[in-house]
């Protein structure tokens, strides 16, 4: 970042310029600056939901596109995600308190035998940003852990993640158990992870394979829209 940019005083920017600057700060992974921007917008009577969607999600969308297009790489995306996490930590209690719109609910976790959670955490954060309530089960989840969580939480979507070729078949174990118990049609099942592909997602009976966090959010929204349409048609 240049000296000139270092001199920018966020509080002196108007709303439009501040949001543009927050996009840049998110892109550069500057957590403290993003947190400052969030607090400034809240201080200017922006609703928490507006700060989330227009400033944070807007900025992360650019990061997501540039990652997809090979302009940004994993370290930069993680830094940006860390900056967004800082902003989200400020907004989350306010969003709950103000009853911000909720798109849907997702239970998400890495499958049994797998401790990798970078992708899963990114998806969880982007889902939260998109207005989903996210219940994160963490890593190394057995069938029982998934079942217990979906029975307890009643989500719209179950998300499963795996980084290893050796652990990804476990997703089928979970889906087959849902089928056995007659619960499969109650939930949309989304899967993701580096060694997965669309063919695998279809083969194990998932509703969709999601290539990255941005695709996961779009896919989740699409399935929620379908669900609402079905409910409206049956009403």
């Amino acid at each position: 970042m240049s000296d000139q940019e270092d001199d920018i005083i966020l509080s002196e920017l108007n709303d439009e310029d501040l949001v543009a600057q927050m996009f840049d700060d998110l892109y550069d992974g500057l957590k403290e600056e993003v947190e400052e921007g969030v607090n400034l917008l809240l201080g200017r009577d922006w609703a928490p939901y507006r700060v989330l969607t227009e400033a944070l999600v807007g900025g992360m969308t650019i990061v997501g596109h540039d990652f997809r297009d090979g302009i940004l790489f994993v370290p930069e995306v993680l830094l940006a995600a860390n900056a967004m996490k800082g902003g989200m930590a400020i907004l989350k209690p306010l969003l709950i308190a103000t009853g911000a719109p909720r798109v849907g609910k997702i239970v998400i976790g890495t499958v049994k035998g797998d401790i990798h959670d970078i992708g899963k955490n990114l998806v969880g954060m982007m889902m939260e940003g998109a207005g989903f309530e996210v219940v994160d089960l963490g890593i190394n989840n057995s069938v029982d852990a998934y079942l217990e969580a979906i029975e307890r939480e009643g989500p719209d979507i179950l998300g499963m993640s795996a980084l290893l070729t050796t652990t990804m078949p476990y997703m089928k174990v979970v889906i087959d158990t849902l089928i056995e118990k007659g619960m499969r049609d109650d939930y949309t099942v989304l899967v993701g992870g580096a060694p997965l592909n669309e063919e695998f997602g279809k083969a194990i009976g998932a509703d969709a394979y999601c290539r990255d966090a941005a695709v996961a959010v779009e896919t989740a929204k699409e399935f929620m829209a379908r669900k609402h349409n079905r409910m409206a048609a049956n009403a």
Partner: protein
Amino acid sequence: MRQPLKPVTDEQLSNEGLELRDYGRVLLIACGALAREILALINANGWTHMDLQCLPAIYHNEPSKITPSVKAAIEKYQPEYADIFVVYADCGTGGQLKRLCDDMGVSMIAGPHCYSFYEGNTGFQAREELTCFYLTDFLVRQFDAFFWRPMGLDRHPQLLEMYFGNYTTLVYQAQTQDPLLEAKAQDCARRMGLAYEYRFTGYGDLAGTLDAVAVSHLG
């Protein structure tokens, strides 16, 4: 002793691969990270009928490149050889490499990755180690090029916890006994904030598998 035409550096194995082709009957298409170990086995056993074509080892970091590159190599060299054997495990291809090999009538080494077959697939699976990070001789030598720099840890050390927070132990699976490499592996563990474990594996299942391929094409 059979050697490539020119001495090959680890950097070349990472980014370019290696070619040792004086037209034996069998071609091994392998990951560049296995080149030195396969060459050692070829020379120790006098497998003059086995040629070696290694693809860039850095595909370790981008497994989506492995299957198409192996496919291109099989298509290119199949007419020149009685048999081709692929010395890649699944290596993060999610079963795609196995399907390719089956479709093209080619065999490949068994296992999910080299960490498994170096230790022996059966023993490795039985350990059920979730929280171990593995390095081989090659990966110890290339630790910065394969992990530290691509993960941005040279520039952003604060990412260490995000990458490795769920890991507990770095396991150095040694193919050769080399005190310098062991010291380097220990230092890698220190940098990652992980406990350190040394395991001498030798060539594990790689030796027996290649021996079976070699024997089946003798005479």
